[in-house]
């Protein structure tokens, strides 16, 4: 039996799903390896069914009754609930929402899905790269919990993210050795390397969590430290 997967979009730009579709010619194989039972953007199913994996993209609008219903629903119906992308995992750009805009001036509170219900995996990134999303799906299909561990930890921590994490968790803890991968990975180019240390521009940071996830001095999963299959 194929693993059933649903994709549910909350308050988001849909970029995380587009990122998955940027696997280009491989997309057909990926969709062929799973049973995509719900994905309102790509298919006609109108009701979220029970599924082995539910990928949720987007933040939760606490001021929208319908959204809160869906949030309950995805937790009940998904065996593995994945907060896909910054908005859902750590807040991302929606951390800046504050409401007051027409025609729905009262919709002002947006939170990461991880803050609202228990998620099993949370994947930062705005959006996470196509390769990473595929890696995660593959790991879920193969039950590769070792690979997924950092994402499980992320889901548990229910924390927000910010470029400041590099300052607090790396530079301030005398762990930064200046590799620069944080700067390379930042989707808004908010990070410059100055004197061998990241300088984060608070003007450009959208709190996506990529830089700190990518930093090998915050977490170095064991699986990385092997020269496997080469």
């Amino acid at each position: 039996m194929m693993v059933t997967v649903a994709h549910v979009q909350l308050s988001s730009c849909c970029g995380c799903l587009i990122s998955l579709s940027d696997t280009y010619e491989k997309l057909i194989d990926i969709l062929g390896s799973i049973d995509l039972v719900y994905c309102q953007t790509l298919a006609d199913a109108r009701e979220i069914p029970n599924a082995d994996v539910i990928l949720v993209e987007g933040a939760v609008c606490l001021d929208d009754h319908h959204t809160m219903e869906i949030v309950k629903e995805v937790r009940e119906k998904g065996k593995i609930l994945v907060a896909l992308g910054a908005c859902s995992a750590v807040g991302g750009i929606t951390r800046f929402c504050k409401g007051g805009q027409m025609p729905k001036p009262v919709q002002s509170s947006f939170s990461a899905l991880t803050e609202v219900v228990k998620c099993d995996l949370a994947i930062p990134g705005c959006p996470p790269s196509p390769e990473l999303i595929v890696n995660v799906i593959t790991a879920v299909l193969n039950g590769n919990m070792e690979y997924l561990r950092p994402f499980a930890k992320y889901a548990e921590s229910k924390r927000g993210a910010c470029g400041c994490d590099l300052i607090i968790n790396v530079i301030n803890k005398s762990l930064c050795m200046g590799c620069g991968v944080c700067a390379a990975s930042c989707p808004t180019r908010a990070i410059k390397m100055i004197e061998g240390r990241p300088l984060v521009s608070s003007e450009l940071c959208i709190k996506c969590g990529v830089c700190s996830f990518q930093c090998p001095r915050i977490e170095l999963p064991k699986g990385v430290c092997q020269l496997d299959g080469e």
Partner: protein
Amino acid sequence: MDPFGKYNSIISARATDKRILKKSQDGGIVSATFIYGLENNILDGVIVADRGEKFKPVPKVATTPEEVIEAAGTKYTVCPNISLLKSAVREYGCDKIGVVGTPCQIISTKKAIKYPVGLRHVTDKIALTIGIFCMENFPYNGMKTVVEELCGARLEDVVKTDIGKGKFWVYTKWGETKSVKLKETHPYEQIACHVCTDYTAELADISTGSVGSPDGWSSVFLRTKKGEEIIKKMIDGGYLETKPIDEGKFGLGILKKLALTKKEKNIKEIEHRKELGLPVPIIE
């Protein structure tokens, strides 16, 4: 304890091209390999540490042999090479990228390959990683202090710096050679290096350094198929000359000793940090 990590073979080698040897730190393995890769369609861009003003290194995407040679030689201070990984693919349009880096930078690259969260369509274009041995690095002003205050040379004048035989050496363009005992440089080391247990860049395709081989030669670990293939082609084509590594005390022996020293010392530091309740990167 395993000193070197996984590898298929280790040799002593040096480049045959005199242009490279004139500028390279040791046997010119890094520059020669990158140039060979660029000239033979194995690589189309390499990330190196270029020499900026006052010996300040600047990461650069080099796409020609000339640019590779310009960036040869060790800079004993942090150069965030990996910060260019994405640019190399994006505005430079490279598909086959070579990366040189210290062991920690190779670890960063490996993590990026395994977890490319913020590196869309990038990591599949990393064609070769070359790691350089590293005991520790210095912040820029740490290096400056060593060169200017301890060795008494002006940074503007420096043409080469080197670590060997227990000393930090500075060569100036006026032909002078100055040195200071390594022991005296310790206070200027980058503290973040003290939680690093990798001396020989255990995750690179090829790792190289001077220790274990005679002056002007390099010790080279071939760790992966990719790494082996390119080095073999270079040897066959006469781009590298090689000899078996000295298995004795001044060859593999000293290399092993230094690798283990780093591991033991820094594992202690990691344990110490844990005791203090400070975070450490490696999570079991």
